[in-house]
């Protein structure tokens, strides 16, 4: 290694891209190499289950940054997958056969979809929903009347049901727990979202556990323990995130498939000079503020910028209070903060608050209420109490 060697960032999702641009913003003048494992220019991943899947946007509409901006900021983008890290030599080996020497390394390659059942066959009818290439494969098979089974009634599953139903597919959602969105927002949206889905012609099956997945010549068959089976033309698995960390084996970084890569509150891993950002980061700071159950865009972006600060020896900015927004069957849902316990009443056109024992608003959820959300966001960020909420609503 020499000081001339670049900072290498593996992964060109929002964490990696934000890290690269933030390094320039902090005045880093050396080389930055961004290793992009996908064939598209770096794009906004939240669009995968929404407008890209529905077909209302193309990849060029949802790029993270304009294509020219990488050259403008002197950020080198290399199209390849990282295959292993030789930390003793400060080298990353690439699928293209090349080897990159680094002065510092940032791992920002995110997670991967969990399989519905471990024994599921590999089939062109079975998809994850993580990337633009997943979308391309799914959309080439979806047409009006095609039956799509979506495994997982979490956020991604519900967004996918919206997008595919609007593309004319017949959609069945399979959820293991007794309701949709059980882990989101303390379950507040479960009833409403199921209502919207059923009204829009989506079949919702809760409390069903997939035991086996089989492929016949014409269908994918998912056996549901004690509740028969579902046969569909396509199966899309939205049942959570694993972290593919096998490629890091042997480089000294402490990592696991379930938790990602361990790091301190500056994003540095157990190997000095190797950092981790975004969903893949599993550390005290990131774990508490923006991660684990909330693998969301904003947290990943902020974590990329925080790692840039750490690399430059600057103060690491505090990660923002997490927010998330989506649209399900035309209804807007905006969330900020934490959802623990029961909130104030939630209804369409209003904003519900979670208030802690000290009367402080710690979370808020707006349903078709963008104005209410602006007030709520300010309130939760400032950590002001329930009294001020009541005053503002009077």
């Amino acid at each position: 290694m020499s000081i001339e060697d670049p900072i290498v960032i593996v992964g060109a999702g929002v964490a990696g891209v934000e890290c690269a641009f933030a390094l320039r913003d902090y005045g880093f003048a050396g080389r930055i190499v961004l290793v992009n494992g996908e064939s598209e220019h770096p794009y906004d991943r939240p669009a995968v289950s929404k407008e890209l899947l529905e077909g209302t946007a193309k990849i060029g509409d949802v790029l993270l940054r304009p294509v020219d901006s990488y050259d403008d900021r002197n950020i080198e983008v290399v199209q390849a997958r990282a295959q292993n890290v030789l930390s003793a030599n400060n080298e990353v080996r690439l699928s293209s056969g090349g080897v990159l020497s680094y002065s510092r390394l940032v791992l920002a390659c995110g997670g991967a979809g969990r399989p519905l059942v471990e024994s599921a066959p590999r089939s062109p009818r079975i998809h994850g929903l993580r990337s633009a290439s997943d979308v391309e494969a799914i959309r080439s098979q979806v047409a009006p009347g095609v039956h799509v089974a979506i495994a997982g009634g979490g956020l991604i599953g519900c967004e996918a049901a919206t997008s595919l139903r609007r593309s004319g597919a017949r959609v069945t959602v399979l959820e293991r727990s007794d309701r949709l969105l059980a882990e989101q927002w303390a379950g507040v949206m479960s009833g409403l979202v199921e209502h919207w889905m059923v009204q829009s012609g989506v079949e919702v099956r809760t409390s069903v556990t997939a035991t086996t997945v089989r492929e016949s010549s014409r269908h994918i068959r998912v056996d549901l323990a004690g509740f028969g089976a579902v046969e569909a033309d396509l199966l899309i698995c939205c049942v959570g995130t694993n972290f593919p960390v096998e490629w890091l084996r042997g480089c000294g970084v402490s990592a696991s498939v379930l938790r990602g890569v361990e790091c301190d509150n500056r994003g540095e891993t157990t190997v000095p000079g190797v950092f981790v950002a975004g969903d893949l980061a599993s550390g005290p700071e990131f774990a508490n503020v923006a991660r684990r159950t909330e693998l969301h865009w904003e947290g990943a972006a902020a974590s990329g910028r925080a790692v840039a600060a750490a690399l430059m020896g600057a103060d690491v900015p505090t990660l923002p209070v997490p927010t998330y927004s989506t649209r399900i069957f035309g209804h807007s849902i905006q969330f900020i903060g934490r959802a623990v316990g029961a909130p104030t009443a939630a209804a369409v056109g209003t904003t519900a608050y979670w208030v802690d024992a000290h009367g402080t608003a710690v979370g808020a959820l707006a349903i078709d209420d963008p104005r209410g959300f602006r007030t709520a966001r300010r309130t939760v960020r400032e950590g002001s109490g329930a009294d001020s909420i009541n005053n503002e609503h009077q």
Partner: protein
Amino acid sequence: MTRIIRTPVVPGVPVVVDGENAGPVTVFVDGDDVFAFEDNCTHHKCALSDGDFDGEVVVCACHFAEFSMRTGEVLEGPAVDALRVFPAKIVGDEVEVEISE
């Protein structure tokens, strides 16, 4: 070169006018305030005229990016780039928008 575009005053309702090379321009009149800005959100190009108008702030309907209609400044992400704003004033029963190219 500067062009003037004129459009009738419609208080409280966003009106989209053709800014030609500047693209579609949203004109919004709220009391004495007159705002004119590019209609395409700088994030993913959604029409800001479909958004929510709250004081001096426009909230994009697609991903809830927020901009100051007065300065174009990004107030909330996910947008990164500022919105282009145009000088505008009420003359008689019309709004005049000044577009420089």
